[in-house]
């Protein structure tokens, strides 16, 4: 994700640790850092959540505005997901229009929400072809210490789960909760370096990773989204091993998520 250079010494150290089955922060290869989800932190947002994944921190906010639907889906509301890699969060993030990394991140989180069937977009239509609700999910990265994919996905989902439709603000009646259909798929990210596979990479691990694999699984443990990244490759066996890690972590994360958003 970041262009920070990890010193050759640290790289060797991480390689050596991995050969002994260890990680810098004493986690197991398939172990996540601590996850904290705090929904409803921003009063002005229709929905919001602050997520901490170890020392990585993201604040997501949902805003709804009225607008026109897309021509090819006149009866559907619109979802726009955007991530801001704030210069606040890392010495490697610069002001200016989003780079490739931020775009990939936004689009992966966006597909995660969109394809999950979580939002009932047809219920966001007010006047077919004319007026629908546009749902903006904005992800503000505040502290970047690795694995933004999972932190942002969780923050976006949690913010949506606590969001309302702001009928009042538009003089259209009373606010109602955003219509959500199902329990969302949970995404787990893994990296590979020097042959080792690890879940929830810390920043240092990300920086030396050869390849990255994000898998989102739903309650039936079905695959709902995948994104492979970086120039390294995965064998079929490695994909299977990662799938197993993901299956076990998804369950734990889903429980944390459900408790936090009370859905």
């Amino acid at each position, binding site marked *: 994700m970041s262009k920070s250079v990890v010193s050759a010494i640290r790289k060797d150290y991480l390689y050596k640790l991995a050969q002994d089955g260890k990680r810098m922060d004493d986690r197991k290869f398939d172990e996540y850092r601590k996850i904290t989800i705090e929904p409803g932190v*921003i009063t002005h947002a229709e929905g919001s959540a602050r997520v901490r994944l170890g020392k990585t921190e993201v604040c997501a906010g949902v805003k709804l*505005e009225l607008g026109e639907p897309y021509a090819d889906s006149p009866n559907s509301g619109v979802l726009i997901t*955007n991530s801001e890699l704030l*210069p606040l969060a890392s*010495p490697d993030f610069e002001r200016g229009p989003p780079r490739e990394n931020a775009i990939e991140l936004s689009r992966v989180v966006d597909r995660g929400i969109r394809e999950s069937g979580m939002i009932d977009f047809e219920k966001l239509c007010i006047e077919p072809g004319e007026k629908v609700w546009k749902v*903006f999910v904005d992800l*503000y990265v505040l502290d970047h210490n690795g694995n933004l994919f999972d932190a942002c996905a969780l923050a976006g989902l949690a913010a949506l789960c606590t969001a309302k439709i702001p009928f009042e603000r538009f003089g259209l009646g009373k606010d109602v909760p955003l219509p959500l259909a199902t329990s969302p798929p949970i995404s787990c990210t893994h990296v590979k370096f020097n042959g080792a596979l690890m879940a929830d990479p810390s920043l240092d691990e990300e920086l030396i990773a050869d390849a990255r694999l994000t898998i989102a699984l739903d309650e039936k443990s079905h695959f709902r989204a995948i994104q492979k990244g970086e120039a390294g490759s995965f064998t079929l066996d490695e994909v299977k091993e990662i799938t197993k890690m993901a299956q076990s972590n998804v369950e*734990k994360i889903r429980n944390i998520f459900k408790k936090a958003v009370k859905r």
Partner: protein
Amino acid sequence: MEKIKLIDEKGKRIDGRGAKDLRPIKIKVHPLNRADGSCYIEWGTNKVIASVYGPKEAQPKHLQDPLRAIVRCNYDMASFSVDERKRPGPDRRSSEISKVIGEALENAVLTNLFPRTMIEVNIEVLEADAGTRCTGLTAAGIALADAGIPMRDIPAACAGGKVDGKIVVDLRKEEDQAGDADLPIAILPRTKEILLMQMDGDLSEKEFYELLDLLADACINISEMQKKALLDRYKQEEDVEEDKETEGKKTENKEIKKEEEE
């Protein structure tokens, strides 16, 4: 539109404050890990986070000053910080505010100690309710101190104005919008030098100087809170933080374990 009554018969403002009263202020020093220094402030409903990186080599090179560090400020409002969604990224308003805050901070920093470098200050407004530039500047002052950047003094800021004909400090949104004047200032508390001053509205000469006095006092109060927050942080830093880390690790493991047992 009907004009709202902003001061009641007893001279109280809509949230019960008197003319000189500040909204509740909560300060958290060093909330972020990556930044060299950081500060989170809740000031009334305002929620603002500031981080500092540097001194680092100024880039691009033509910006380097051979005699001193340059201070660059990025003030930004989150899209969801206000009622109507704000388009993410810089706009004309944030550019101006970044400029005036950056200039004010540059005054406080001993820039001549770090020639050719840049000190980067980032201010993110997560929630806005009038007075975000003063909240941001106050937070940035703490973040600079937290980053160990040497300063003549830690700048503090506060806005004031005129509401229903009365001079008051620390306007909240309703007062800002319906009020007759808005005057944000930042000072160096020790010398009371003015680092930032902007104003619009309508103030007589007498009102203007009266308000300036109230604001200087308010800034000195804020300065006390800044110092207290930093002191608390220094005291806790070594012992407590380490404990937290270990505990965090434990809780985490416990949590995951608990999940596994369920």
